[in-house]
């Protein structure tokens, strides 16, 4: 574990080293949150206070804030670190360090999201403190159920990014892979629009992918909404764990394949 925490600390230190870049990366997505708020405010104004897709205004604004905080745990640069290293060949440095490849990756990503996570948590508290009366405040029991769900969601998302990044060993088009991953996540996880607003068939299709378990489901648990999976909490945790195991298996397969037919940039 000393290795893991050392690598996590290095990752955090790397993010904090360049002050301007750190603050820009940290705060620029807040503009996106503002845009989402204005969009939904306009839509609810047209509904004259009525619900949209079964979600009341207060519930939606709470959802937007929480979904933003979870979705924004990793920025574009952070998510694509491994993919970039594979494309440039710098990944070879990871391969020769005496630590598991996945351990190094998870430690690095944890370092990235811990700093952003702390800021996002402050934003959520500030949001509830300032606008709590216009929002749905979670119950304590929901909060208790949410914490493990959040941790599993984060682990699942990191592994999903890892697997997509490993695909870069087999193609030179890492941006195409990164955009595909981002599009799938943003749409099916409920980061852009709550999955609850999808038409029935699309909701069912989304339910069969791992993406809602990275965002929509944990937020629904926190807000006390019916989760689209329709399972109780043990079932939800179980499904998240199953998806984690699927991605772990994919990691092992892809990493093994890469080592058999690997060409690293630069010889």
């Amino acid at each position, binding site marked *: 574990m000393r290795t893991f925490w*050392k*690598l996590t600390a290095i990752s955090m230190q790397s*993010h904090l080293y360049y002050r301007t870049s750190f603050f820009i990366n940290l705060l620029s997505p807040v503009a996106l949150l503002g845009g989402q708020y204005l969009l939904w405010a306009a839509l609810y104004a047209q509904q004259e206070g009525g619900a949209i897709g079964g979600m009341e205004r207060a519930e939606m604004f709470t959802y937007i804030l929480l979904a933003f905080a979870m979705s924004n745990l990793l920025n574009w640069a952070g998510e694509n670190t491994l993919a970039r290293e594979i494309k440039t060949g710098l990944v*070879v*440095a990871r391969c020769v*360090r005496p*630590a598991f490849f996945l351990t190094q990756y998870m430690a690095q990503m944890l370092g990235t999201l811990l700093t952003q996570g702390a800021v996002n948590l402050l934003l959520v508290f500030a949001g509830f403190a300032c606008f709590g009366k216009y929002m749905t405040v979670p119950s304590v029991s929901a909060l208790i159920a949410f914490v493990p769900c959040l941790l599993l969601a984060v682990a699942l998302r990191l592994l999903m990014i890892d697997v997509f990044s490993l695909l870069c060993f087999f193609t030179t088009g890492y941006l195409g892979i990164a955009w595909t991953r981002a599009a799938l996540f943003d749409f099916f996880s409920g980061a852009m629009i709550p999955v609850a607003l999808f038409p029935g068939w699309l909701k069912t299709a989304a339910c069969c992918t791992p993406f809602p378990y990275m965002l929509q489901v944990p937020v629904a648990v926190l807000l006390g909404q019916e989760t689209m999976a329709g399972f109780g909490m043990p079932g939800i945790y179980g499904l998240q764990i199953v998806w984690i195991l699927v991605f772990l298996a994919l990691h092992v397969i892809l990493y093994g394949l890469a080592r058999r037919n690997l060409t*690293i940039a630069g010889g």
Partner: protein
Amino acid sequence: MIEARELRKVYKVNHKQPGLKGAFANLFHAEWEQKVAVDGLSFQMEQGRALACIGENGAGKSTLIKMMIGILTPTAGEIRVFGTDPRRGGRGYLRRIGVVFGQKTNLWTDIPVIESYQAVKTLYRLDEGMFRKNYDRVVELLALQPLLSVPARKLSLGQRMRADIGMVFLHSPELLFLDEPTIGLDINVKHTIRTFLRQMNEETGTGIFLTSHDLDDIDEICDDAIVLSGGRLIYDGTLDQLKHRFVQDKMIQVTGKQERDIRSLLPLARIIMEGRVVKIVYPVREYSSAEVLAAVSGCFAIEDITIEEPDIDEVVSRIFAGEGML
């Protein structure tokens, strides 16, 4: 220490047709071909030796290193380092070796160099005494003190390479793999790195496996050499033997008064007069050095004499110009 037997690595590469038409055609029908990077390679390297791997671009040098450090799987054949398969050696194996790729850094780029060194201490589970001893040594020999507080991203190429080479010695590796470690560096940095590597090889017994296009690196650091061409081994032996087998001419430079015409004694030699200095270039197949020295001492009142050693540049250019297989 290293033992390779019939080692072979074949890559599958996408063969694309030329031109726009070919680019479109490739979208719907990919043609794959097999590229043999390493072909039936067998060689050994003993503990503590410094072995150079010489070859043109694409000869299979980097692929060979990647198989030896365990990140690439051979298509066929067997490789054993310290008696085990590098792919199965895991973290224990990685703790016994060091790897430096000249075009890629092992440092964490966004934190000061000293922080990367501290990370090595944790990753390699070094005790404070061992770490401090190695740290002090590399900082002194590579003059790293001014670089320690600077992030690797802000270092020049030469500074970064010194820091990379220093880092790889912190865990006292038994065997070091160096892939083009001096590429793009200026002459002073090259000299510092070569001197350091040779010193560490001699003093600590660290084995060195080096690939380089800079033949001065090879000459100054290594004792033995293997030569690859098209993935195949065409020479395995000492560097001295390699030089002598491929050198056709040698040169003796004499300063002093000529008392007798040396041409009559060495009719097949080329004599170049440069004032009081006479250069005698002689074919090694016709004359031994002893014969030439005897002739020189009979013809000159010698003030100074220099025997030019064969140059590895010349050897390698002859090998790859196809002037003979070994």
